[in-house]
């Protein structure tokens, strides 16, 4: 094999020398033959003539010898390559259409593959991330899943469990950062000291927290914060920060001990990590479930083993502490699954969608090629007649389609780069790592693979078919007899049917997702976010310590000052902004109700509001009253509850006058009113029970979110609002100043992203499929021009002709429709988790999508049919 290759290469390099030798060899033969003839008695001239005659075609011999040498293959390929380029350039429209279709298909594929690779497949920046698990609490009797853990329980598991190398917990705690370049409100996290050891992350600068006895004031900072606030200066280590937490210990400074690596982004967008000193109070049970928990499995321990062990421990606890732990179990989930959640369904779905698009694009190009190949039968027949081998023809056609595919791949990659840029700019932040999606090498390899594969798919079948052309019949091809072979027609029709069904499946999926989104948009959030601006303020602790009456005064002044701004109709404030991502729960007891056990208190969301809040956001009062200025320090503590609270805890009892009690003083008081349910987490999640308290009657919060109802575009007021708030507390931090509608729309961003991408793909699929139908029907009409001409000459009317053509198309459309509907019926169940109050087989969606697709397909079919009616019989009969 090797020897042969070497010979071939040498043959190629010394081609001219070898040719010369061959010439000389043949010349020698000719001379000897001539000599012999002379000896036989012929004249010189005659001898030469006879020799030449017996010799036959010298060029043919040379050609065959070269063939044997094997240089031929390489030479021919080069020749085919140049020929292919000439052919492609000579038909720019055909080439452009094919390249564009492929570029769309391949580009979309590469983009989605890059995203999947970046988000799902790329290893997490944590050591052996397959050993990481997320622990959460569940309670079947209370119907709670995915709740956080209780720190006392975690401490038990740490001591008793044998499955885990480490169990780490954290709590989120946004802080005001002072002492760096610019005061800023940042995402803070309190972590147990083993947190980063559990994750398997090491600081890039400085050190991690010590396992034990880490001083309370130590913090780790994110790479991002290090760059942003310290310019990446190593001198940041040891620097003192004021985190504005120090109400109980004012002037407390934190010092930076380490900087985390750039790729570590967990918890998402957290910038400051504080120690979480575990104090004796943490050992009391029955406290809140507010510890987010991750753990690292010991090598060789599976999730199932860990699950059964920890469930055992949880049931032991339930026996030991029935008051607090009965009914609670722990569930162990892989960290990846926890991190990616619905992205794990959404992204593969998009990928499947995009593969469909590529398939449809390939079918179109195959169709084009087939039509081309048929129209090129004469050319091919001539080449066959001139002695070109069948393999040679196939190879040449394959090279043509490979070139097209590579061109498509090239533009596809450019397109993909554009898409990824758009995704980085516009994609939702909520999908982890999406923002770092770039075209990567595997994706590039994938693109090249796709280009080659589609080259083979759409090149081979037409090539095989074209080379089968019978020389004689083709060259004799008369327009009347020369209809396209049955095989080609069948294949093209199969392509059309396939395209329609694929497009239908894609369209149904997109339709269901779109309908879910509509359903979601029409969910009544219990408030009217239009014309409302939000603005948060986090007070400086130094000036406004916990318990200071100054806070309430400031909030009161703020409401008044904001209300005085021109264009403002009303102003309110709330401690935890709906859709703002934060919440706080407070345990309580309902007086006179024993059904909720003594110790196992009920828990509800606790929110501090100004009296004007409900009116400002447009939430209706259902019963009783809301707060007024009479509800303040010194008057009886009153609560307003939401409807969910009444439903969950009061069982039809009249809420007005019901008294709440609890360990916390904040939970003692009387219910005076009921307001409409306001969605809090997002539009999909049902409203949880909540009770509201007036800011003047609570140990006021250091953080308030103002809502400002405006007459005009709310964002026009943002500068003025920010200035007013800042002037009230020059050291406070103002955040989240933007229209309320934007805040809400952020919570549906991942869904919207899926929807938009899917909708684009579905539209692309429909356009491509319509092009396919149109192309096929146009070709069918062109092919039957003569027949139609005869029919018209014999008196067929335009409508008859239209019927003829459309009925042929309709058969294909109906077949595609049936297959597509069956496919959708089976496949849409996989997207169930992406749907919101829409069934995966929603009949209305199926119906509408079916009608839409059939209409488009019929139009694509009807245009060529109309053209057919315009055929002039005379022209048609002369048609060549």
């Amino acid at each position, binding site marked *: 094999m090797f*020897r*042969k290759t070497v*010979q071939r290469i040498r043959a190629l390099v010394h081609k001219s020398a070898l040719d010369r*030798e*061959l010439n*000389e*060899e*043949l010349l*020698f*033969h000719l*001379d*000897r*033959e001539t*000599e012999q003839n002379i000896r036989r008695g012929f004249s010189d001239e005659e001898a030469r003539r006879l020799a030449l005659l*017996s*010799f*036959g*075609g010298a060029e*043919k*011999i040379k050609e*065959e*010898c070269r*063939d*044997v*040498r*094997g240089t031929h293959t390489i030479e021919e390929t080069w020749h085919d390559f140049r020929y292919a380029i000439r052919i492609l350039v000579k038909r720019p429209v055909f080439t452009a259409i094919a390249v564009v279709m492929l570029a769309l298909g391949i580009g979309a594929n590469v983009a989605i593959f890059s995203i999947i690779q970046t988000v799902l497949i790329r290893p997490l920046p944590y050591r052996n991330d397959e050993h990481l698990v997320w622990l959460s609490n569940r309670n079947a009797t209370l119907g709670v899943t995915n709740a956080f853990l209780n720190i006392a329980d975690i401490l038990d598991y740490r001591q008793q469990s044998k499955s885990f190398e480490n169990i780490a917990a954290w709590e989120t705690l946004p802080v005001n950062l002072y002492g760096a370049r610019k005061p800023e409100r940042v995402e803070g996290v309190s972590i147990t000291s083993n947190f980063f050891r559990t994750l398997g992350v090491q600081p890039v600068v400085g050190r991690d927290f010590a396992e034990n006895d880490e001083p309370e004031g130590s913090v780790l900072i994110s790479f991002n914060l290090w760059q942003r606030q310290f310019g990446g200066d190593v001198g940041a280590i040891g620097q003192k920060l004021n985190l504005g937490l120090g109400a109980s210990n004012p002037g407390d400074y934190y010092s930076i001990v380490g900087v985390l690596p750039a790729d570590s982004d967990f918890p998402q967008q957290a910038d400051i990590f504080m120690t979480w000193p575990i104090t004796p109070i943490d050992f009391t049970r029955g406290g809140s479930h507010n510890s987010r928990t991750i753990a690292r499995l010991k090598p060789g321990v599976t999730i199932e083993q860990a699950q059964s062990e920890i469930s055992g421990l949880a049931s032991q606890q339930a026996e030991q502490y029935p008051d607090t732990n009965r009914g609670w179990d722990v569930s162990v989930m892989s960290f990846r699954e926890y991190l990616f959640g619905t992205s794990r369904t959404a992204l593969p779905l998009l990928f499947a969608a995009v593969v469909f698009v590529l398939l449809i694009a390939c079918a179109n190009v195959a169709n084009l090629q087939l039509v081309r190949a048929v129209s090129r039968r004469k050319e091919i027949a001539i080449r066959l007649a001139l002695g070109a081998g069948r393999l040679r023809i196939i190879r040449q056609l394959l090279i043509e389609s490979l070139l097209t595919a590579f061109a498509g791949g090239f533009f596809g990659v450019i397109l993909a780069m554009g898409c990824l840029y758009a995704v980085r700019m516009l994609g939702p932040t909520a999908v982890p790592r999406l923002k770092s999606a770039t075209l990567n090498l595997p994706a590039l390899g994938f693109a090249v693979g796709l280009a080659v594969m589609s080259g083979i798919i759409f090149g081979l079948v037409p090539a095989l078919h074209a080379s089968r052309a019978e020389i004689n019949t083709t060259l004799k091809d008369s327009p009347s007899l020369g209809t396209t072979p049955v095989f080609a027609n069948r294949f093209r029709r199969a392509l059309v049917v396939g395209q329609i069904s694929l497009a239908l499946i894609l369209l149904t999926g997109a339709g269901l997702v779109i309908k879910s989104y509509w359903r979601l948009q029409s969910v009544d959030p219990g408030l009217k976010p239009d014309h409302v601006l939000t603005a948060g303020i986090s007070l400086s602790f130094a000036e406004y310590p916990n318990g200071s009456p100054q806070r309430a005064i400031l909030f009161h002044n703020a409401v008044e000052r904001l209300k005085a701004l021109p264009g403002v109709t009303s102003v309110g404030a709330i401690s935890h902004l709906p859709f703002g991502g934060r919440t706080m729960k407070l345990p309580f007891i309902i007086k006179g109700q024993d059904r909720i056990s003594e110790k196992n208190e009920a828990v509800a969301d606790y929110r501090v509001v100004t009296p004007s809040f409900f009116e400002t956001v447009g939430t209706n009062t259902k019963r009783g009253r809301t707060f007024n200025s009479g509800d303040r320090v010194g008057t009886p503590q009153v609560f307003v509850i939401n409807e969910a609270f009444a439903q969950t805890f009061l069982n039809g009892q009249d809420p007005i006058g019901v008294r709440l009690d609890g360990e916390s003083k904040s939970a003692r008081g009387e219910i005076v009113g009921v307001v409409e349910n306001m969605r809090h987490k997002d539009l999909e999640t049902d409203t949880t029970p909540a009770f509201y308290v007036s800011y003047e009657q609570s140990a006021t919060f250091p953080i308030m979110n103002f809502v400002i109802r405006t007459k005009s575009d709310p964002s026009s007021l943002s500068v003025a609002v920010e200035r007013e708030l800042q002037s009230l507390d020059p050291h406070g931090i103002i955040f989240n100043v933007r229209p309320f509608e934007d805040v809400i729309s952020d919570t549906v961003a991942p869904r919207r992203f899926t929807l938009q991408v899917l909708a684009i793909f579905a539209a692309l699929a429909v356009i491509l499929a319509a092009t396919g139908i149109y192309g096929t029907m146009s070709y069918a009409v062109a092919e039957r021009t003569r027949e139609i001409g005869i029919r018209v000459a014999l008196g067929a009317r335009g409508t008859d002709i239209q019927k003829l053509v459309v009925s042929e198309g309709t058969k294909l459309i109906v077949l595609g429709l049936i297959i597509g509907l069956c496919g959708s019926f089976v496949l849409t169940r996989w997207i169930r988790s992406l749907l919101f109050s829409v069934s995966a087989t929603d009949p209305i969606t199926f119906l509408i999508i079916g009608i839409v697709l059939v209409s488009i397909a019929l139009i694509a079919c009807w245009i060529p049919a109309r053209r057919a009616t315009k055929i002039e019989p005379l022209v048609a009969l002369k048609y060549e």
Partner: protein
Amino acid sequence: MANKKIDLLQGTLDLLVLKTLQPGPTHGWDIGQRIQQVSRDVLIVNQGSLYPSLHRLEQKGWIESEWSASENNRRAKFYKLTPAGRKELSAQTKSWERFTGAISLILNQA
């Protein structure tokens, strides 16, 4: 010509060329002449097949070529058997004999 010429069976030319080269190296024209003479003009070798055959055999490594002076002192390309060619010749000869033997067994059946 009184003698009927017989078209060579596909693949047999290679065997004949190898056999002709067995006594010693020679050039293309001579090979053709010898096959014709030895077969008493029954087998006429067409140049159009001879030279591709020679190149094919060379490509396979069964013969090798060298330019040297011919009997009339002209430069000519001489071919000679390689050791691999010798092995191939004996193998092909055996299989040819088996083949013709089998054919004649059938044809001579009484």
